[in-house]
């Protein structure tokens, strides 16, 4: 039954390629555009971040994406969130998406934690009463030190910011949660708690995509994994097998993997 089949499908990437157009200049200006024009130069570099990637993911799974820096993991995640359009191919995402992308950004550091919860919730389309209802749960879960929730977020440590961000993302009740390196900041105790929360979400037939270049989190939490290298899909399968292939590829011994977080 193809229609039932489609219903369980959370994410479907069909021959997705994502190419950036960037210029060499860090900050594009009118002045430099004129200077370039005068010299007859045209410095636009195409960066193929993701190349012809295809995979399907069903609801109730935790997918880990591993790969070296620059493999296109974060770009892919942004495309799944609808922030970046693919250059070629098609992405199907079934459900409400919540993102926890590069740590802390999206949060306004001038505002208090509580105000940031409101702002984040409003941006994702929740109403004020809905946010108010969830705020206490979010604050409880983040377990910030006494009083910090009403202090500007610039006073937070990286770990505290990460905990609050994670707490907001999981409490927005997403069907699909996209997480980018977010757990690297939390301490061991919070990581355990986060893993339990993620397992709970999966139990409710939700889907999580976790990006990390550290294998520890992937092996602990995921039941499915993808290894990407230079924008290409290298392997898809059981996290253990994928991690083995990845570490072999990198030439790092299997024992080193368990001790080094940033393999």
């Amino acid at each position, binding site marked *: 039954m193809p229609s039932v089949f489609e219903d369980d499908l959370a994410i479907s990437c069909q021959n997705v390629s994502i190419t950036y157009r960037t210029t060499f200049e860090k900050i594009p*200006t009118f002045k430099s555009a004129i200077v370039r024009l005068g010299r007859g130069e045209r410095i636009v570099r195409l960066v193929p971040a993701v190349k012809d990637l295809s995979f399907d993911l069903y609801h109730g799974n935790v997918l880990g994406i591993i790969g070296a820096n620059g493999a296109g993991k974060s770009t892919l995640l942004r495309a799944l969130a*609808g922030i970046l*359009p693919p250059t070629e191919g098609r992405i*199907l*995402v079934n*459900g409400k*998406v919540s993102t926890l992308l590069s740590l802390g950004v999206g949060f306004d550091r001038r505002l208090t934690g509580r105000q940031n919860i409101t702002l984040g919730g409003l941006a994702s*389309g929740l109403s004020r009463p809905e946010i108010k209802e969830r705020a206490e749960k979010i604050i409880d879960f983040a377990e910030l030190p006494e009083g910090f929730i009403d202090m500007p977020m610039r006073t937070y440590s990286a770990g505290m910011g990460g905990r609050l961000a994670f707490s907001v993302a999981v409490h927005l009740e997403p069907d699909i949660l996209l997480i980018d390196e977010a757990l690297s900041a939390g301490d061991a105790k919070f990581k355990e708690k986060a893993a339990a929360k993620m397992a709970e979400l999966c139990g409710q037939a939700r889907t999580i995509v976790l990006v990390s270049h550290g294998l520890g989190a992937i092996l602990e939490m995921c039941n499915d994994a993808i290894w990407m290298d230079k924008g290409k899909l290298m392997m898809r399968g059981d996290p253990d097998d994928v991690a083995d292939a990845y570490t072999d590829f990198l030439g790092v011994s299997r024992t080193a993997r368990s001790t080094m977080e940033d393999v």
Partner: protein
Amino acid sequence: MTAPSSAAPVPPQERRAETEFSSGVHVYEPHRAGLPKLKPYFRELWARRHFAITLAHTDMRAAHTATFFGQMWLIINPLLLALVYLLLVDVISGRPQGLWYFSHLLSGLFIFYFISGGMIQGSNIVVQEGGLIMNQAFPRLLLPLTSVYVAVRRFLPTLSILIVFHFLSGTPTTIDLFWLIPIFVEIVFFTAGLASFFAAVQVYFRDMSQFLPYFTRIWLYVSPVIFTVAQIKHKAKLAQLEWLNPLMPLLGNWTQVFAGEPVCRTGVAPSCKTIDHIQTVGVSYHYLAAGFAWAVVVFAIGALYYISRERDFAVRL
């Protein structure tokens, strides 16, 4: 929302979400410069209006405009500027201008600073809120509209000064003043169009915001702020401004309705020697229509250009 997996499930094509911000099945396909469906886009935008308002209040708090002296500065700044221009005109014309002229100058300057403020703020907001753009999918047009909302909130307190000088200048207070509301709405949409356009351009040319102040300075001089509409119309060389400068109908109508027009014994106000009395000038329907046209066209061009470009922002920041 996850669809119920019971009975007869609807194929995903029919449950397809209309924009990337709503729930349901999202389909992302290549679209570098195309427009999304506008109706659902604006519906999602409206649904997130509280987000824009909260963001605006954050912005104002950061700029200290929520404090007493922050608010005062918003009034004092254009007031001082008006004084500068008053002295300038006094010196150039060789004789002191009356209270009426000051009232005219203030009404024009305050609204002009609303427009240029909204525009300059809007031009910076996409780059400024890069963090949000990189991490959240939401209708990006909310960002320049936030700047315009901030500009409105900053403009409203200055109205009190305008009202004081309106009474001091001896301009009759009539029912015609209610025309200021539709004129202001036109000006708001016009400003929103400019803010959106420059917000998108700023992503590609980061030095744009450095040129804008010079551009607005010139624009001020060719708008009916220092001159009156009557003066501009009187000079054959300036007559084309009526067609070329959108602020002629927009600001012209505003200042005329607000400050009225002096009646002179000889010559054309305000360059006549003695002002007999101030008469009201009813709203110009011609200007109202022209202002409406400018507002619609500029808003449509600015907003559509912005929306067509907004998916490109995430890779440009």
